[in-house]
C-alpha cells in the first residue's frame, strides 16, 4: 500500500515535469529566448506543485486518517482506498493549477527557488519541533503526575516502589514515589563510571598526545574510538554476563557479599564506554594549548611530565572539565547498561556492591509493556524523564559554555 502510493506519486511527478517543460516550449513556439526561465525550470515548477501538496495530504491522512479507520471498518470500507484517492486527486489538482500558470512571462525559476527556500527553512525547524515535542510530551504527563503525587514527596521521599500499593488511602494508591533512591542510584553508578573513565581517559590522552609516536597514535586512537562505537546493549550483555559474575566470584573469594546485579559492574562497564569521550575531548583541549607553552617549559629544562602537570593541564583545565561534564551527562542518560546489569531494586545505599536502580532504568521498566496513561505508575516515568532531561541538558549547557570560554582564551 505504502509502496503503491509512493510509486504512483513518483510517476505523477515525472509526468508533471514533462508536462511543464512541453507546455513552456509550446507556449514559446519553440524559441527559448522568449521564456523567462529555462524549459526544465518550468518542469521543476510543475513537478514541485504536483508532489508537494499531495505528500502533505498523504502525510496528514497517514497520521490523522488512522482515526477514521474504525469508522471506515464499520461501514465496510477499506480506509486505505480513500487515502489513495486523496493523494492522487491532490496531485492532479496541483498539476493542473501549476500547468495553467506556465506562461513565457512567468518566472518559473524564482518561483521554484522560493518554494525550495521555504522547504529548507522548514527542515531546519524540525529540530525545534522535536525539542518542543520532547518538552511538551514530558511536561504534560509530568504535570498530571504531580497532580497525583506532590513534587515534595517525589524529590525528597526516600521510598520508591511504584509497582505495589503501600497505603490504600494514598492518592494514586498504587505505590510510593519518593525518587531519592533512584537519584542516588544514578549518582552512585555515575561516580563509579567516572572514577574509571577519568583517570584512564585522561592518561591515555596525555600519553597519545605527548609521548606516543605518530604511528602508534594513528593505530591506538581509532582502536579507542571503537569503544565508543560498540552499541550499549552489547556493553549491557558484557556487564551482566561477564563482568558481574567476575566481580561476584572475586567478592566471594575475599569474603564480600556481592549481589549478582551490582552498581559496580554496571559502573565499571559504563566507565569503559566513556573512556573515548574523555580521551578524545581532553586530547582536543590539551592540543589547543599553544605549542609555545610546551616549548617554553621544555626550554627551561622541565621534563615532559612536569610540562604536562604544571603547564599543559592547568592551561587545558577548563576544556577538560567541560569534557568531563559532557561525559557525566552521557553517563546519567545511559540506559541499556543499567537496565541489564544494575537491577531494579531502589535502594538508598552508597555501597557499589549492592544492586541499585537508576532514573533511566526506571523509565524503561515503567514504560515497557501496556501502559495506562492515568496511573501514577506510568506517569512517574514522565516525571523521571523530565528530571533526566533537565539534568543532562543543564550539565551539557554548562559544559559547552566552559569549553567555549576556554577556546576563546586561545583564539
Amino acid at each position, binding site marked *: 500500500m505504502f509502496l503503491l502510493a509512493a510509486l504512483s506519486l513518483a510517476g505523477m511527478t515525472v509526468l508533471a515535469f514533462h508536462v511543464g517543460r512541453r507546455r513552456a516550449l509550446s507556449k514559446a513556439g519553440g524559441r527559448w529566448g522568449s521564456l523567462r526561465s529555462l524549459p526544465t525550470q518550468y518542469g521543476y515548477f510543475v513537478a514541485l506543485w504536483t508532489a508537494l501538496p499531495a505528500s502533505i495530504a498523504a502525510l496528514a491522512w497517514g497520521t490523522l486518517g488512522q482515526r477514521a479507520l474504525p469508522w471506515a471498518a464499520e461501514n465496510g470500507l477499506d480506509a486505505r482506498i480513500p487515502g489513495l484517492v486523496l493523494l492522487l486527486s491532490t496531485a492532479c489538482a496541483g498539476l493542473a493549477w501549476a500547468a495553467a500558470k506556465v506562461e513565457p512571462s512567468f518566472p518559473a525559476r524564482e518561483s521554484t527557488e522560493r518554494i525550495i527556500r521555504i522547504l529548507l527553512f522548514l527542515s531546519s525547524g524540525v529540530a525545534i519541533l522535536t525539542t518542543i515535542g520532547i518538552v511538551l510530551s514530558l511536561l504534560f504527563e509530568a504535570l498530571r503526575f504531580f497532580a497525583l503525587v506532590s513534587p515534595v514527596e517525589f524529590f525528597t521521599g526516600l521510598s520508591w516502589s511504584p509497582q505495589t500499593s503501600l497505603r490504600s488511602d494514598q492518592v494514586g494508591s498504587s505505590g510510593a514515589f519518593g525518587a531519592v533512591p533512584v537519584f542516588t542510584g544514578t549518582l552512585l553508578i555515575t561516580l563509579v563510571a567516572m572514577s574509571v573513565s577519568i583517570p584512564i581517559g585522561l592518561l591515555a590522552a596525555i600519553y597519545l598526545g605527548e609521548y606516543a609516536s605518530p604511528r602508534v597514535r594513528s593505530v591506538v586512537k581509532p582502536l579507542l574510538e571503537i569503544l565508543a562505537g560498540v552499541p550499549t546493549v552489547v556493553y549491557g550483555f558484557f556487564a551482566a554476563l561477564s563482568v558481574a559474575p567476575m566481580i561476584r566470584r572475586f567478592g566471594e573469594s575475599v569474603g564480600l557479599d556481592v549481589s549478582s546485579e551490582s552498581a559496580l559492574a554496571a559502573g565499571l562497564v559504563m566507565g569503559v564506554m566513556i573512556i573515548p569521550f574523555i580521551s578524545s575531548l581532553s586530547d582536543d583541549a590539551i592540543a589547543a594549548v599553544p605549542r*609555545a*607553552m610546551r616549548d617554553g617549559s621544555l*626550554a*627551561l*629544562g622541565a*621534563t615532559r611530565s612536569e610540562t604536562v602537570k*604544571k603547564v599543559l593541564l*592547568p592551561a587545558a583545565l577548563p576544556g577538560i572539565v567541560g569534557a568531563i561534564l559532557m561525559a557525566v551527562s552521557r553517563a546519567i542518560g545511559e540506559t541499556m547498561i543499567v537496565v541489564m546489569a544494575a537491577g531494579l531494586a531502589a535502594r538508598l545505599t552508597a555501597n557499589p556492591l549492592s544492586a541499585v536502580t537508576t532514573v533511566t532504568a526506571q523509565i524503561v521498566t515503567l514504560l515497557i509493556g501496556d501502559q495506562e496513561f492515568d496511573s501514577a505508575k506510568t506517569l512517574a516515568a514522565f516525571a523521571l524523564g523530565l528530571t533526566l532531561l533537565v539534568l543532562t541538558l543543564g550539565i551539557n549547557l554548562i559544559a559547552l559554555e566552559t569549553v567555549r570560554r576556554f577556546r576563546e582564551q586561545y583564539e
Partner: protein
Amino acid sequence: MTRSVEPSAPPTADPHEEEPNGARATTTVGEPRARVRAIGLNVFYGEKQALFGIDLAIPPNQVTALIGPSGCGKSTFLRCVNRMNDVIPTCRTTGRIELDGADLNSPSIDVVQLRAEVGMVFQRPNPFPKSIYDNVAYGPRIHGLAETRAELDDIVMGSLERAGLLKEVEDRLTEPGTSLSGGQQQRLCIARAIAVKPRVILMDEPCSALDPIATARIEELIDELRESYTIIMVTHSMQQAARISQRTAFFHLGRIIEEGETEQIFTDPHEERTQDYITGRFG
C-alpha cells in the same frame, strides 16, 4: 636520535678527581676560549638536510648575532644548543656541538640539566597562563634551586630586577603573566630564563613581535645581560645585529658564509654574498 630523553646516570667518579684539561679535551691550545663550539655540525629533518658542516666558536660574555635569509638554518642551529630539536621526531644530528667542551649530543647528556644551563627566549613572548611570580619561579621550582620561600623570593625578585621589569610589576606579582603588554611579556620571559642561572641564553628573534619602543628596551637589556651571560641571538634586523652584537655569523642555505667581529662583517665583509645580504640586495 631518540625522541625521549635518556636520563644521565649519576657520574660514577668523584667530580674532584677529574682533571680540568680532561674536560677541555677538544679545545686546542691557542684557540680563543669558546663557550659554545660547533664542529662539523649537520642537522637533518627526515631526508632534508638543514645544516651543512657548521663550524662556529662562540666566545663567552658576548652577544653573537646569527643573520641570514629565512630558512637558512639560524634557528635550527640555535635549537641545537639546547637540543630543542629533540622535540621534532624526524630530526637527526651528526657532528659535534659543545658547551664548555662537553659534547652535547653525547648520550650521557641529560637534556633536562642542559636546558637549565642554556636558557631560551622565543620569537613570540610565551608566558605561562600563571601569575607573574609563578612564571619566574617555575624554573627554580622544577630544578630545586631554592630551599625556602625566602630564597625563591630572592631569585624571583632578582631575576625581575635584572630583566628591568621589577618596578613595573612589583605590586601585581599575582596577576597573570598574560595581562602584561607584549614588551613586558618578553622581558618576563627573559626573567624566567635567567632565574635558572644559565650560562648561555638563546634568543630567537626576540623583538620581532614587538613595537620599536619595546624593542629598544629589550636591546638595552640584552646589552646589560652580556656581562653575566653568553647570548646567541637570531635576528632579521641588520641594524639590530650591528647595534648590540659583538660577533656576527652570516648563514646562507644551511652553511656559514662568514663569521667574525660584527664591525668587520658590517664594514668590510670578505664575502660578496655577505655584502649583498647586509646591503639588502637579496634575502
